């Protein structure tokens, strides 16, 4: 297989042999793929600064096996220069992708959502919550675990969200978790992130669902957000 100028983002890279990188790359048409970037760690290699997470890239690669070879890299449309918490947010998205995606399954919509989320994180001085929530919703949908929002929902009713069955109306006191307000579920269904008061509840719901599918193994990148108290 030979692919030319495919839009892509580096999700993870680790050193390979003396001078190469082993890359996990999210591509628009081929999904998550593994590539080896030969010689890319040599001093003076032109790819060195391009092959970083969050850079929009156009890559060419070829190969027959699961591990293919990177043959060229060009800068893509966007340049992101992440600072501060936004790097953590980006690392969080990358960790989710690596944990939940299977290699070589195309997810074009997810690629677009990831790209938009990175650009929003990069440009906005606003909250990092809406781009992250949109990304999480899309990721869950793409891997077949989408949040179930097609029930008839009432904004004024409280629901218990069951990961398998979806929202279940709650009447009276209960110790079931998580409890979510109807208006929060409606906002998620309509992709409406204008009400900042709902952000905490949205995060809570998505975290609960994601944790279920991450099989109880916690995400390391969350420590970056929570560990600030040291």
């Amino acid at each position: 297989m030979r692919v030319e100028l495919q839009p892509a983002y580096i999700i993870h890279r680790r050193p390979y042999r003396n001078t190469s990188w082993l890359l996990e790359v999210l591509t628009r048409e081929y999904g998550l793929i593994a590539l080896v970037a030969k010689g890319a760690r040599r001093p003076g290699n032109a790819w060195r600064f391009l092959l970083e997470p969050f850079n929009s890239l156009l890559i060419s690669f070829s190969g027959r096996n699961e591990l293919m070879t990177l043959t060229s890299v060009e800068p893509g449309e966007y340049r992101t220069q992440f600072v501060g918490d936004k790097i953590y947010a980006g690392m969080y998205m990358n960790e989710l992708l690596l944990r939940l995606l299977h290699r070589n399954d195309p997810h074009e919509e997810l690629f677009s959502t990831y790209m938009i989320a990175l650009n929003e994180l990069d440009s906005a001085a606003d909250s990092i919550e809406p781009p992250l929530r949109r990304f999480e919703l899309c990721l869950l949908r793409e891997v077949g675990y989408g949040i179930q929002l097609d029930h008839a929902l009432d904004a004024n009713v409280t629901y218990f969200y069951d990961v398998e069955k979806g929202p279940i109306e709650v009447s009276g006191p209960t110790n079931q978790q998580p409890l979510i307000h109807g208006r929060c579920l409606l906002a998620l269904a309509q992709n409406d992130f204008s009400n900042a008061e709902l952000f905490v509840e949205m995060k809570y719901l998505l975290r609960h669902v994601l944790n279920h599918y991450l099989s109880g193994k916690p995400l390391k990148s969350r420590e970056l957000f929570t560990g600030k108290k040291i």
Partner: protein
Amino acid sequence: MSYSPLLQQLIDALRCLPGVGAKSAQRMAFYLLERDRKGAVHMADKLQEAMQRIGHCAICRNFSEEKICALCANKKRDSSQLCVVETPADVVALEQSVGYRGLYFVLMGHLSPLDGIGPAELGLNILAERFKQEDIKEVILATGTTVEGEATAHYITEMARGNGVSVSRIAYGVPLGGELDLIDSGTLSHAMNERKSV
């Protein structure tokens, strides 16, 4: 061709070195056996001793066979400045080329959640203790200019600010003797954005 069992074991053992494959390991093993048995025994002794005795300095986490390394124990160093680096090699590079007189903290890596490396794995709790206990006025962040290096720098910045310590980041830009048209655009844009008045 098959080697004798012990020779095979020696060759396999040598392959744990970075960049040493089967062929290089065989060359090394034959060289030591044919030409320099004394040197090999000495090396084996030192390897044994180093692996047993060298640990981490309790203050800066650099390699040291003492509980506190010579650099941290040196009273002439300026204890109000603390330079944070990723590897012991970075300390050596800075010591050899820069007139820096402060102290160090060696992370032994950088934040990389996807590899399972978070704040605790980098000993940042030890660093937080130092911010609290010692009279550090300035922390100089000399982590790499990769995404992971930046994330690490940001994390330590927040820790330091929380403790009222001022933070600086080493400058990056055009290398000495560099010509602008040969520099990558990322470095060049940094150099332009962080220009200084003269």
